[in-house]
């Protein structure tokens, strides 16, 4: 059943005065948006007056409608076009900037939901070798984007440490030779971290991110060690240790560690406790991410998964808690998903989040490289391949060049399928200017890269989150907090741009 809203019965419509827009009944008020990325929240009464052409040009509301591109005869095309380009800057990007390298599939943890399709630590056949690593870096530098971000993933990348080091140093040499901007990031579980490795990562300006699902009882249930045991204490130890070292050295302030949480069924009762732990550890942000039924998670969905509506409830409840902490002054912790959406909605900017773009970031914004040199449209596409379906494989670093990857039929299919103007429901949705669909997710859950939006869990959860965010924007108490977050986020980026000469860029 469609989740779109229709006009109330009996509302007169004067289409002659209306520019193209989408709308949504938010319960007592209406949200209007357009392809320029502009939005307006208005009472249902005003909405009905607008629809019937009864808003007088002398009213303040008319001026608002006019400047935001909702009045057909009063469109300021140069300004609106500039807004469109700013919001959709990725449509002009010369190829992907994010390159995820899986240096091994081996892992020493057995996470309940593992997205990454890992294997036992004995499976050394799934380690990337040096020759493949070199070819992978060569391929990455053959793509045209002047900015390159290499992200080490796994498995557990620290299990193939020599290759992490080789890629880091070789990529840095190539970036210097070609005058390319290079950012490097390591996503690891921290259980194999040592002071020596940390020294190396600091010295080579590799930013660090880990997974922290919450308090020990939750994290260790979600992410146990292979063969049993507890992992959370090690994560907490290293988060504290890295922060200690960053605090002690001005040059390291840009390398504060990040942590990501994944929401399983077990997380649902732990919202405040998860946030409290992040606050206690001094983490600046928390990212309330839903679990995707992809890879290993698909096999155990009955045990760890949940309905999209349940996630939205969890999200709203936990976001409320975070906002309360901010209002009371107990913490300034920010929620990442909210920040991403606010950047799009309020600032009209693209925050570089691959999943919520039209077209999606697959190939256009990111590529994933398997341990054996195979190239995939995204890391999720690699996971589908791991289950025996090579649909999302678009090349191999030994044989392919960039042109063959961007011209690959799968690339074109993903781009076309994730363009929202081609999607039933999406093209009429009020959240279209800020949303996106993910072809791999829909292939995995609905057997088609296009998906079926009325029954899509992706659509339910994202529409739900957008509803929450727009409701918060209309609530003055929450709006104050959200505006503050945007301001702080802007300062962070400006600080990053002002990294002293000689210091490489860092991933924030």
């Amino acid at each position, binding site marked *: 059943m469609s989740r779109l809203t229709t006009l109330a019965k009996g509302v007169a419509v004067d289409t002659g005065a209306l520019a193209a827009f989408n709308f949504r009944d938010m319960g007592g008020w209406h949200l209007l948006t357009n392809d320029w990325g502009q939005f307006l929240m208005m009472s249902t009464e005003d909405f009905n007056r607008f629809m019937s052409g009864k808003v007088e040009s002398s009213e303040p509301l008319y001026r608002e409608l006019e400047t935001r591109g909702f009045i057909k005869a009063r469109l300021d095309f140069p300004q609106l076009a500039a807004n469109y380009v700013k919001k959709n800057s990725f*449509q*002009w990007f*010369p*190829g992907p900037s994010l390159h995820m390298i899986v240096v091994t599939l081996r892992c020493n943890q057995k996470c309940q939901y593992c997205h990454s*399709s890992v294997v*036992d630590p*004995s499976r*050394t*056949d799934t*380690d990337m*070798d*040096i020759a493949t*690593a*070199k070819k992978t870096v060569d391929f990455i530098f*053959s*793509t*045209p984007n002047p900015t390159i971000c290499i992200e080490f993933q796994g498995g557990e990348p620290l299990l*193939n*440490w*020599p290759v992490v*080091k*080789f890629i880091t*140093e*070789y990529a840095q*040499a*190539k970036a210097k*030779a070609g005058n390319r901007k290079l950012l490097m990031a390591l996503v690891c579980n921290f259980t194999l971290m040592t002071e020596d490795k940390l020294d190396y990562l600091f010295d080579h300006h590799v930013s660090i991110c880990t997974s922290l699902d919450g308090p020990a009882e939750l994290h260790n249930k979600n992410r146990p060690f292979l063969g049993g045991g507890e992992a959370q204490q090690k994560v907490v130890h290293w988060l504290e240790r890295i922060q200690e070292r960053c605090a002690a050295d001005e040059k390291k302030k840009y390398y504060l560690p990040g942590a990501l949480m994944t929401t399983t069924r077990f997380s649902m009762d732990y919202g405040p406790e998860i946030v409290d732990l992040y606050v206690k550890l001094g983490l600046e942000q928390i990212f309330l991410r839903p679990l995707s*039924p992809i890879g*290993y998670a*698909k*096999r155990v*969905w*009955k045990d760890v998964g949940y309905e999209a509506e349940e996630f939205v409830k969890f999200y709203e409840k936990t976001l409320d808690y975070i906002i309360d902490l901010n209002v009371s002054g107990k913490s300034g912790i920010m929620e990442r998903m909210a920040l991403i959406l606010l950047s799009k909605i309020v600032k009209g900017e693209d925050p570089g989040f691959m999943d919520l773009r039209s*077209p999606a970031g697959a*190939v*256009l914004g990111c590529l994933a490289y398997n341990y054996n040199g195979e190239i995939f449209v995204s890391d999720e596409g690699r996971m589908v391949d*791991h*289950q025996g379906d090579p649909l999302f494989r678009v090349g191999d670093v030994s044989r392919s*060049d*960039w*042109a063959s990857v*961007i*011209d690959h039929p799968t*690339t*074109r299919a993903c*781009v*076309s399928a994730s363009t929202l*103007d*081609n*999607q*039933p429901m999406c*093209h009429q949705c009020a959240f279209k200017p800020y949303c996106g669909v993910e072809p791999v997710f829909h292939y*995995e*859950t609905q057997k*088609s890269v*296009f998906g*079926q*939006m*009325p*029954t899509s869990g992706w659509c339910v959860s994202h529409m739900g989150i957008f509803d929450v965010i727009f409701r918060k924007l209309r609530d003055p108490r929450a709006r104050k907090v959200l505006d503050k977050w945007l301001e702080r986020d802007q300062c962070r980026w400006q600080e990053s741009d002002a990294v002293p000469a000689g210091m490489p860029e860092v991933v924030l």
Partner: protein
Amino acid sequence: MILSKKIYSMDAVRISAQVLSSKVNVYLDETKTAFEVTLEAKRKDAGPEQLAALEGEFGNELLNQEYRFIVGRFNSKISALIVTQTLMAARGGETPAAAPAAESTPEFKKLVADLMKNAEAEVARTMPRKIPHQGTPLPPIKEDAGV
């Protein structure tokens, strides 16, 4: 199922059959004005409720595909513009940029050779012995995984 040709296209029927191919076999016949579709569940023990659900799923997918064609035609100009613009920009031009001159210098080549040599030596010194490829570690997923 009798599907009017005035409403449904052969493409929509075929794509829907493909999308549901893991659950049903789809047999197709046609008259001048309609498609006659027969669905056969792949699960031999499917009861009346499951058969009705499969028929509903097929109907939903059929509507989804047919409506997708309509939306695609309606918005073809703007979507073609976006897709073309994005792919062209991402391609970065007709011919790939040449490798930077600095990479052809003897110093750079030596640097790379040293990096590789040191890395190979570290792998040999610190890593467990590499075993031959063992094949895909996970069996194919079952259809009723609950997603």
